């Protein structure tokens, strides 16, 4: 039988093992960050053709004649960096959409952003178009415009008179818009010839072979803006995940948090889809796996998901490049083949 004193000690012991949030955040970011760094360093070294690192970094050989350096810096590195950027953007916007919709099953594509992006890309691929916008070539530019259009429509529909968005209307509008845009995509493809349809279908599978650093540099500013907004959201997202009304009574400006969350997550998703096509499952599998490892506090889940999303997509793309080499599997197929069963396992396990 415990005396009062030992009960007191037992209770205080039960509170102290929980490391303060600062420490947990630092440990999580350091751990996941190291993993991301490791993946991004190792991934470019592996591929269907082996490269000699000493030759690749040998500055006495001119770059034009240095095949090893060309494979490393032109073929592989942009692809790994694109994977890291897209994975981080999709996983973190998945976290934000799940909190905004108070639904752990939401994905970055639930609200129609990717369907809009796909329709834009399809139109340019099939009807043709040469309009490059700034650093964006025609297909990504159109996909960005389509994503923006979809986000604007959903936003206008869900923007309620009480200035607080209805998550039900958001979900219904998103699902409907997804179906509507998908029908338009099918219609546009019906009008196209065989080669164009093949190219369009390939785009829809997602592809990190972005062909250099320029497309990455074009997408980067959008993702950075989104990330700067993300940094200010997690505490409010935590409270909205408890209950929107009580979040308001705890000092959260719910209407404005919803708008910033919607805008930033849509921006990051649009940039990712414009860069690499709609790569599925990252935005839902990664946040769930991260919550399993570090708990549900958004202040930790959000940065951890961004880092782990980067790792996960780079690793999936590595598999896509090497599994059936020299044939490449579309990376969206790999993420779905890994992500689908894994997610079902999660559901069974949690249910």
């Amino acid at each position, binding site marked *: 039988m415990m005396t009062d004193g030992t009960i007191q000690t037992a209770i205080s012991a039960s509170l102290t093992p929980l490391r303060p949030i600062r420490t947990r955040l630092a440990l999580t970011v350091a751990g996941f960050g190291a993993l991301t760094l490791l993946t991004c360093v190792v991934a470019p070294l592996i591929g269907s053709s082996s490269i000699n690192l000493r030759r690749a970094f040998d500055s006495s050989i001119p770059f034009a004649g240095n095949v090893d350096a060309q494979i490393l810096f032109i073929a592989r590195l942009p692809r790994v960096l694109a994977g890291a950027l897209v994975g981080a953007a999709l996983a973190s916007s998945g976290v934000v959409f799940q909190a905004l919709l*108070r639904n752990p099953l939401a994905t970055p594509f639930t609200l129609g952003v990717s369907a809009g992006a796909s329709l834009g890309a399809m139109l340019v691929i099939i009807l043709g178009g040469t309009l490059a916008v700034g650093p964006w070539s025609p297909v990504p530019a159109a996909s960005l415009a389509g994503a923006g259009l979809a986000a604007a429509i959903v936003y206008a529909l869900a923007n309620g008179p*009480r200035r607080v968005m209805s998550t039900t209307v958001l979900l219904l509008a998103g699902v409907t818009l997804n179906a509507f845009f998908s029908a338009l995509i099918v219609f546009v493809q019906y009008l196209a010839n065989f080669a164009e349809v093949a190219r369009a279908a390939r785009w829809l599978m997602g592809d990190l072979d972005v062909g250099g650093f320029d497309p990455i540099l074009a997408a980067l500013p959008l993702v950075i803006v989104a990330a700067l907004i993300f940094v200010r959201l997690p505490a409010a997202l935590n409270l909205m995940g408890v209950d929107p009304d009580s979040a*308001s009574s*705890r000092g959260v400006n719910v209407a404005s948090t919803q708008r910033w969350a919607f805008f930033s997550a849509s921006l990051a998703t649009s940039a990712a889809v414009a860069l690499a096509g709609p790569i599925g499952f990252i935005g839902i599998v990664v946040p769930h796996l991260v919550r399993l490892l570090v708990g549900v506090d958004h202040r930790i889940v959000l940065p951890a998901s961004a880092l782990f999303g980067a790792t996960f997509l780079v690793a999936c793309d590595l598999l896509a490049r090497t599994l059936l080499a020299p044939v490449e599997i579309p990376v969206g197929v790999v993420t779905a083949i890994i992500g689908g069963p894994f997610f079902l396992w999660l559901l069974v396990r949690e249910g």
Partner: protein
Amino acid sequence: MTPESSTYLVAHEVSYAYPRRGRSGGLAALSGVSLGVARGSFTGLLGPNGCGKTTLLKLMAGVLRPSNGTVTFQGRVLADMPRRAAARHMAVVPQDTHPAFDYTALEIVLMGRHPHLRPTQLEGPGDLAIARESLESTGTLHLAHRPFTSLSGGERQRVVIASALAQQPEVLLLDEPTASLDLGYQLEVASLLRRLSREHDVTMVMATHDLNLAASMCDALALLRDGRLLRHGLTADVLTAGSVRELYDVEADVHFHQAAGHLTVTPVRRAG
């Protein structure tokens, strides 16, 4: 209304209509209600379903803005105060809480510190000490690391009250805090609230359907029906058989219970 009650937390002729999508006007939930709550008092809001109790509570918490009229706290118009500033003075305990994510009890309680922190500021040892104190005073310290969703109804409600206490509010607004609890937990939560009101000098406003609970805890009652204030005054003056008939169309026996030490209400039959 005492002179002090007219300056602490006051609703001045407030009306509220829930907006309807795509239509002008709305569903009137409250019309022209004036109500003053004195510092340190325990006020009960009574009335049938749909009478506007919850709406009035949300207006007094500043969660909703009145369509007409104003709510003032210590002379300041609540609608003009930033949410964070208002949340440092008043906290709400909702009827029930269904988090979308699997937070632990401690995480829920620590979120009560939100209005005291900057948006990107992480809570420190001081906040953890306050959370711990709140868990202690609601008897839930041993539940700190349990997932909130694994707790019983009574435990959840006490954790939510702890979260509101971590906000260090001067006013606690409670929406039927015992409605989903069994008799044992009802008494437990009731005695917790009574203790908080007495020992911590927290002003309480509680919407409830439980007339006996209101009789045992509240020193003042406000009776609402169809979005209007019928009566407001000391519990002993307001809680009468006539009031019960007027509010619920129910004949009731209201008398002072010696052992319980407060008025009790025994419904007898539907009036009419």
